[in-house]
C-alpha cells in the first residue's frame, strides 16, 4: 500500500470502503487476545455508528504503524458543569479518516477493587455502543475505566447515560485524579484496613478538585492493603496509603511444621529465614519458627511464602508515604514515609484520614509551583519545612539513615531534642493510662 492510498476496495453495499490494514493484520495471530480483532469486529459487525468510526480509526492506526508516528492532538472538551475527565483527541489526518476525526476518551471512576456484575458490564457496553465507538479499556494506569472514542457532540450524552447508572467522571489535567485500591478486604487475608472505605472517603470528599481542575498539577491517591502494594502506590501516587500492623506477626506453629515437612528444612531456610530483610526469623530445631518482632519491618515476605502459617497482627492500621510520581520532569520519585502508623478503624479514624488528605491537597495547592508534583515541592523546600507546614512530628522511620552532611545549622538542636523527649514522655504516659 502506498501513502495516501487509503481508499481501499469499492463497497459492495451502502457501506464505506474498508481501509486495508496490512500492518495491523499481523497482530491478529498468536495465543494472546488481539485488540485488532476486536476493533475489526466493531468495524464489521458493530452498530452502524461504530462501524464507520472504527473503519477510519483502523485506517489511521495502520498509517501510524506504517509511518511510525502518532496522529492525535489534544484540545478542550468537557461536560456541563465539569472542567475535566475527558481526554480530547482530534485527528491530524481527518482529511483521510473523517469518521474518527474526534476520538475522545471519557475517564470514568470504577468501583474500588474493580468489582463488576455482568449487568453492569452489559449496561456500559450498551451505552458505549450507542454513544461511542464500542471500545472500552479496563482499566487505565490510574484506574479509570476508559471509554475510548467519542465525538464532541456525543460526549455529554455518553456521560449523562453513564451518570444515570451511578458513575462519574474521573480526573484529567491539573486536578485530583482517579484513585485505585487493591482487592483488599474483599478477598485477601493480608488486608490491613478497609481499602474501599478509605478510598471512597478521601476521594468523594475532594470531588471538587477532580471535576474542576485548579491545582498546580495532578494529585493522586492510591490505597494498598499491605506492603505488597499491589496497586503500586509508593511509586505511582502523591499520597500512598499502605496497610500495616504494630503488634506481633501471628504464627500458627502447627502450620509452620506442616510447611517445613512439605517443602523441606533447607528450602524453608533458603526462602524464608535467609530472605528476611532484617534477619528477624529463625527456624527452631523442632521446625517451629521464632520471629523477632521488634526487628521485623512488616515487609510481608514470610507471610507471602507461608500463607497458612503466618498472618499480619491484630493491631492494624496504615502507613502514609508522600511524593511518588513518574518521570516528568526531574525523574521518577518514590514516596517518602511521613506517617509510619495511624489507626484506621473507627469513624473518627477515617475522618482523620480524610482531613489529612484535604490538608495535603491544600498544602499542594498553596505551595507547589506550576506543573510541580508534591514530591518535587518537598525536594525543593526540604522535608522539615513540609512537616512543619503539615504539623507532622519528625520520626526516625522517615529516613533510611540520618543526614551524613555536617552542613546544617543546629543552634536550636536542644529545643528540638526537648520536643522529642516531651513527645516520648507523653506517649509513655498515654500508654500507661490506657493500660
Amino acid at each position, binding site marked *: 500500500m502506498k501513502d495516501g492510498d487509503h481508499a481501499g476496495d469499492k463497497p459492495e453495499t451502502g457501506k464505506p470502503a474498508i481501509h486495508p490494514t496490512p500492518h*495491523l493484520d499481523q*497482530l491478529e495471530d*498468536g*495465543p*494472546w*487476545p488481539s*485488540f485488532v480483532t*476486536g*476493533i475489526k469486529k*466493531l468495524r464489521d459487525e458493530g452498530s452502524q455508528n461504530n462501524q464507520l468510526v472504527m473503519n477510519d480509526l483502523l485506517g489511521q*492506526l495502520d498509517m*501510524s*504503524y506504517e509511518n511510525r*508516528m*502518532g*496522529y*492525535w*492532538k489534544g484540545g478542550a472538551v468537557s*461536560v*456541563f458543569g465539569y472542567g475535566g475527565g475527558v481526554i480530547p483527541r482530534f485527528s491530524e489526518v481527518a482529511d483521510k479518516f473523517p469518521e474518527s476525526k474526534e476520538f475522545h476518551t471519557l475517564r470514568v471512576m470504577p*468501583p*474500588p*477493587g*474493580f*468489582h463488576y456484575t455482568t449487568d453492569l*458490564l*452489559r449496561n*456500559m*457496553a450498551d451505552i458505549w*455502543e450507542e454513544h461511542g465507538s*464500542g*471500545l*472500552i*479499556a479496563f482499566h487505565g494506569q490510574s484506574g479509570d475505566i476508559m471509554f475510548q472514542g467519542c465525538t464532541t457532540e456525543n460526549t455529554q450524552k455518553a456521560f449523562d447515560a453513564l*451518570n*444515570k447508572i451511578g458513575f*462519574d467522571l474521573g480526573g484529567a489535567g491539573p486536578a485530583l485524579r482517579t484513585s485505585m485500591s*487493591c482487592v483488599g478486604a*474483599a*478477598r485477601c*487475608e493480608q*488486608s490491613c484496613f478497609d481499602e*474501599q472505605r478509605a478510598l471512597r472517603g478521601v*476521594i468523594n470528599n475532594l*470531588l471538587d478538585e477532580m471535576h474542576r481542575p485548579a491545582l498546580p498539577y495532578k494529585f493522586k491517591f492510591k490505597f494498598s492493603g499491605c506492603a*505488597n*502494594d*499491589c496497586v503500586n502506590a509508593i511509586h505511582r501516587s502523591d499520597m500512598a496509603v499502605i496497610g500495616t500492623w504494630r503488634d506481633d506477626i501471628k504464627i500458627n506453629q502447627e502450620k509452620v511444621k506442616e510447611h517445613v515437612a512439605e517443602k523441606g528444612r533447607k528450602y524453608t531456610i533458603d526462602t524464608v529465614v535467609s530472605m528476611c530483610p532484617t534477619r528477624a526469623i529463625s527456624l527452631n530445631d523442632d521446625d517451629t519458627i521464632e520471629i523477632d518482632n521488634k526487628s521485623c519491618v512488616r515487609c*510481608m515476605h514470610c507471610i*507471602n511464602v507461608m*500463607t497458612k502459617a503466618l*498472618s499480619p497482627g491484630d493491631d492494624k492500621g496504615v502507613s502514609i508515604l508522600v511524593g511518588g510520581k513518574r*518521570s*516528568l*520532569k*526531574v*525523574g*521518577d520519585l*518514590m514516596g517518602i514515609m511521613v506517617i509510619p502508623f495511624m489507626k484506621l478503624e473507627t469513624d473518627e479514624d477515617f475522618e482523620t484520614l480524610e482531613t489529612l488528605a484535604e490538608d495535603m491537597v491544600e498544602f499542594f495547592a498553596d505551595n507547589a509551583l506550576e*506543573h510541580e508534583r508534591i514530591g518535587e515541592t518537598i525536594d525543593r523546600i526540604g522535608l522539615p519545612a513540609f512537616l512543619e507546614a503539615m504539623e507532622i512530628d519528625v520520626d526516625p522511620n522517615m529516613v533510611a539513615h540520618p543526614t551524613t552532611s555536617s552542613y546544617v545549622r543546629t543552634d536550636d538542636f536542644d529545643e528540638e531534642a526537648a520536643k522529642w523527649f516531651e513527645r516520648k514522655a507523653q506517649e509513655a504516659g498515654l500508654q500507661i493510662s490506657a493500660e
Partner: protein
Amino acid sequence: MSQTAEDVKPRTADEVGVPDPFQYMHPTLKENYGAWDYHDRPRAGVLRHVAKSGDVIYTVRAGTQRQMDVFTIRKLADIADNFAEGFVRFTTRSNIEYMVTKEEMVEPLIDALNDAGFPIGGTGASVSMISHTQGWLHCDIPGTDASGVVKGMMDMLHNEFIQEKMPNRLKITTSCCQINCGGQGDIAINVQYTKPPKINHDLVANVCERPSVVARCPVAAIRPAMVNGKPSLEIDEKKCVCCGACYPPCPPMQINSVESTKIAIWVGGKHSNARTKPTFHKLAVANLPNNAPHWPEVKEVVGRIVAAYKSDAKHWERMGEWIDRIGWPRFFEMTELAFTKHHLDIWTGARHTMNHSAHIHF
C-alpha cells in the same frame, strides 16, 4: 417545532463520585469482607481463598487485551453468567477474575474461557499481563504503540503466563514515551528518544505558551528566540537530553521521527516491599529499533533477559534481587548485552549509584 428552554438546557451532573463497590461484589466476598483466613493456588491461574467463616472462593484469572470491544465484553459477561455466578473483577494489570464457590465449577469455567480465547494464568511466579499505556491508538505524544508491543510480547511469553515456572513474579511494563506512564517493572520496554526535537518555527508562536515550555525543560536547554522574524524557541542541542518533555506543551517541537525514536529496555524495578525495598528499573540496553508491528529486536532481547532470570534466579528472587546477588558484570555477560558509558548515571544523585566499595564480582 420550537424547543423550550428546558429542552436545550444540559443536564446537571449528579456528582456521585466513586461508586459503592458492594453492589457489584460477589456475595461470598461481601459476606466475608475483612474476614479471610488464608489462600493457596491449586494450579496456575487459580486462587483459593478460605474465609474465617469456612467459606471458600475459587478465583480463575484470565488474560485480556485490555482495550476491549463490546462483543468481547459481552462474551466475558456471558461466561460469567453461565459459569461463574454473574460476577467478575479486574486486576491492576487488566486480567479478568471470575469467582466461584464450588471446586467443581472451576474446570468448566477454565474450559469456557480457553475456548473463547482467553488464556488462564498470571498468578504467582508467572509473567503477568504487561501494564501499558495508550500509544498510537489514543495518545497525543506517543513514540510507539503500546497495545501492539503488548500483543507481540504476550504472544511470545504466553507459556510463562499460563504456568508458574519463574523464580518469582515477573512484571513487565511498556511506555510510549519517556514520561514512563507504564511505570516501573522487572522489565520495562520504553521509548527512548535519541535526537533533540525538530522545531516548526512557523507554528510555535500560535500554538505554544513559550514561558511554560522554557520552564518544562529539565536541563534549561530551551530559550525564547526570534526565528525568521517570528517569536519562537531555540534549543541548545549540546545540553538537550532528548527527554521529550517540551513536546506535550508544544507540539511544534516534534520529538518523534522514524529514525530517532528508539526503544530502551530497563530491568530490576519493583513495587512490592517484600524482602527488599521498592526499586526503580535500571538501563539494560538502548537504541533498539521501533520496528512495528512485531518489534523483533525488542522481543529477542526481552526473551534473553527472561531466560537468564528464569535459569539463574533463586525461588522468590525478583529480577532486581537476582541481579543484586549475581552482580551487574554477570548480568551483562549472561544476557550478552553491552555495558557502555551510557549506563553510568549522570543525573541528580548519580554519585549514589556508583560502587563506593571494594566489592567486585568476577
